[in-house]
């Protein structure tokens, strides 16, 4: 059982110190955790550093991701001391940024599909899903397309498909979604900017 310092604290907090100490070994846990921290510092010093921007509120704090040169994986994320707004500091959410990487066991990794009336997800591949989504989009659009309104004015819109999100993706992605929606004639378009 590999125990990180943070994991140790969480586990001992959850179980109560007596139980935790007896199950983990009284001395070994903290010592291992300390060793892990030293080890991490060494890895940070040899890592590739990549700058990014926080994905929560709109302050736009800078972060530095440390990437292991051998595995290509991010193993540490912290505030960017060069950034003029946050000057290296972060709030609780920003400080926990690492938990959004693939280290988080809840990350979605596969295309999931839920069939009508089913009570479960099933894994699918991209090609299958894209083909099926395109079919549904086209059929729904073609069936519900409104060329003219009640007054007889040309409106060329699709009123049967909605699009929500997102202010949690990059500008270039926002623009693509915005124009893709318009090309399909969607008008029920909205996202977090309004809520």
């Amino acid at each position: 059982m590999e125990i990180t310092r943070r994991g140790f604290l969480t586990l001992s907090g959850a179980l109560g110190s007596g139980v935790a100490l007896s199950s983990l070994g009284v001395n070994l846990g903290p010592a291992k955790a300390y060793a892990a921290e030293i080890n991490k510092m060494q890895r940070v010093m040899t890592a590739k550093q990549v700058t990014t921007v926080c994905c929560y509120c709109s302050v736009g704090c800078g972060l530095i991701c440390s990437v292991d040169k051998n595995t290509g994986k991010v193993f540490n994320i912290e505030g960017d001391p060069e950034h003029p707004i946050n000057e290296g500091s972060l709030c609780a959410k920003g400080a926990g940024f690492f938990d959004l990487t693939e280290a988080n066991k809840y990350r979605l990794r596969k295309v999931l599909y839920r069939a009508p009336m089913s009570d479960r997800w099933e894994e699918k591949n991209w090609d299958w899903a894209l083909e099926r989504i395109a079919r549904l989009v086209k059929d729904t659009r073609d069936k519900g397309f409104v060329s003219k309104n009640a007054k007889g004015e040309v409106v060329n819109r699709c009123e049967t498909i909605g699009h929500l999100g997102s202010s949690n993706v990059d500008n270039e992605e926002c623009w693509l979604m915005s124009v893709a929606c318009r090309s399909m004639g969607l008008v029920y378009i909205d996202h977090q900017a309004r809520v």
Partner: protein
Amino acid sequence: MTNHYIDLKNSDVILIMGSNAAEHHPIAFKWILRAKEQNGARLIHVDPRYTRTSARCDYHVPLRSGTDIAFLGGMIHYILGNDKWFKDYVLNYTNASFIVGQDFYFKDGLFSGYDTKARKYSKDTWVFEKDGKGIPMRDMTLTHPRCVFQLMKKHYSRYTMEKVSSITGVSKEDLTKVYEEYSATGVKDKAGTECYALGWTHHTTGSQIIRTMSIVQLLLGNMGICGGGVNALRGEPNVQGSTDHAILYNILPGYLKMPAASQDTLAKYVEKNTPKSSDPQSANYYQNYPKFFVSFLKALYGDKATAENGFAYSWLPKLDDGTATSLMHLFDEMYKGKIKGLFAVGTDPAVSSPNTTKVRKALENLDWLVGENIFDNETYCFWKGPGVDPAKVKTEVFLLPASASMEKEGSQSNSGRWVQWKYKAAEAPDDAIPVGEITIKILDAVKALYAKEGGVFPEPILNLKWDYKDSKGRFDSLKVAKQINGHFLKDTVIEDKAKGTKTEFKKGQLVPTFGMLADDGSTASGNWVMAGSFDAAGVNKMAKRGKEDPTGLGLYPNWSYAWPVNRRIIYNRASCDINGKPYNPKRKLLEWTGDTWVGDVPDGPWPPQADRQKGKYPFIMKQDGLGALFGPGMAEGPFPEHYEPLEGPLSKNPLSGQLINPAIKIFNSDLDKVANADEKFPYVCTTYSCTEHWCSGALTRWQAWLLEAMPELYVEIGDQLAKEKGIENGQRVRVSSVRGNVECVAMVTKRFRPFLVEGKTVHQVGLPFNYGWLHPKDGGDSTNFLTPTVGDANTFCPEYKAFMVNVTKI
């Protein structure tokens, strides 16, 4: 934000109202505290609840949720009555002197032109008198009974201390203290700023609350200056960018207007949306609207958009005049069965949208749902939610795995309009790809089907320019960013007559500024406000990391790119007098040297307005060039007026015979129940977030460290109310509104105190909105079971901040 985060340090008085900055924008709050440390700034917090923001401010003033306009209207009354307004600024830089047409009136809570049945105004009488040349008539003595100044004074004369205190529940002493202290910034060498967030926007009167503050700021000369402005501390990482790029029903990228059905040709659309000014001193920058719009169409349709086909204007969808298709309309129509398919990208409306019961019922009517996200959430899993039998839900659901923020390259815009480039640190796990790539793949597949089978009106789909992949077929964000910036589509020579220069640009070269966009199809720009994010040589200014600060004011002009044209504080020419000399030489944002402006990037190159020939007014995006004390563009009137929330404790508005905002849309499905001044739901309720969770919690609830710190839903109840109800701290309680209820832990606190409203004690309670049933299992469900489907009359931003509930022990 009119200003930016670091600029908060330059303020002398910071009014935080409608925000809990210390907990929700902790790093922004660092700059607020720096103003206190460096300038001895006074920090004032006005909020229904005492929070950690209150704890760090000089003082906290509690007010009843939904009464902000009354509070600020009282401030306008105070400023005018006590002669605190900045005369030079108000006379020269606002429409205070404009004469309003004689048919305009205000009576008993309603302005002229109201249609009771339609719940809408005709704005025909909300106009200025004009002279023979078409220029608004002005009275520079401000004494004409129909000048804006006098009408405004009369309007807010009703907002007396007694009246405002009785509506808001704020004592007269506290009102006086805030008014006195804030209005002291109405002088040359002081700056006052306001920070708001969802606490202002989440109301049926949200837009008008912000406008009331804008009026205060104009009266005090606080707009366009260092340490001033009206500053939205926005809540999502790229909500500025997602708004700029208009993933919204009512605008197109760059704040271009969504075409209306009556505008059946490009000419009619352009005519309707291009403002005209006869005043030679008004820059009226939106006279360039056709250039921005045609360049947008060229970015969409390339060679297929020609002068002959109106640049493919007819391929854009049109909304019926005066209609809206916002989030609340979407779920209303879905509930009625009209909406068949939904894309839900990085969003969790089954938790975050108002009236959860209605939203979750509506989702069951879908034929299909496509989700894109890094985690699962209550929306994608609605078919197995509490009380739902999956065997009865027909919806096909796709959940597509997306890359997290650090797994892709691209830009994000912060609230101060800084567009910052971020880099890819690692590959996304397994089959996850960026949302941009998912968008490309889905539309590729749709395009292929239309190409193969034909279909209804395929032209806009088949002809959309859609070549944003790299050589490996992956999403290329740099290619998209350049398309957003824009290109010259033919060899072009730009002549600057003032400077006597000519610059040549080649076909395909990037447009270095939106001033070079054209309406003849010779330029393409996906979003004109971003034209200039690259230079003509292709250098990405969003990626800049220069730390120089030549003004010493924290503008950091070489760090990232701020739209428009790297201007850090908008309307900055208003920081100088009409001769271009800074009002406050100690915080010299800009100065006219006789032939040029020095400092921040000015709002246009023209001389200051004292130059009657070439000079321009400072508010260049306004048709008349001046700050709008009288704002005829708003849905509910040119002067903000206090109305009670849709659901409140009062059956009569103390200020008029009009109880609620007369221009809001009333949704009336069987699940849209309302209980105003109802003894069964006697407590005002509000909702908010916490530091450790973010929005619906759809990202943060999956993170063990954050969840450990804030594990479950709670309701904050004042100790006096708790005593009356026999509720103890930590007990399980049920909070219910007429629409639904949630179970949670009671947190008995001194942070909520009862208000004295119209002579009666009114209690307020509050809950965070960060929880949902999917995860954690025992964390509680959506607070929005309580909230009503109703929103602001201008924006349809839902009312999450004031409604009525009861609290009972379980």
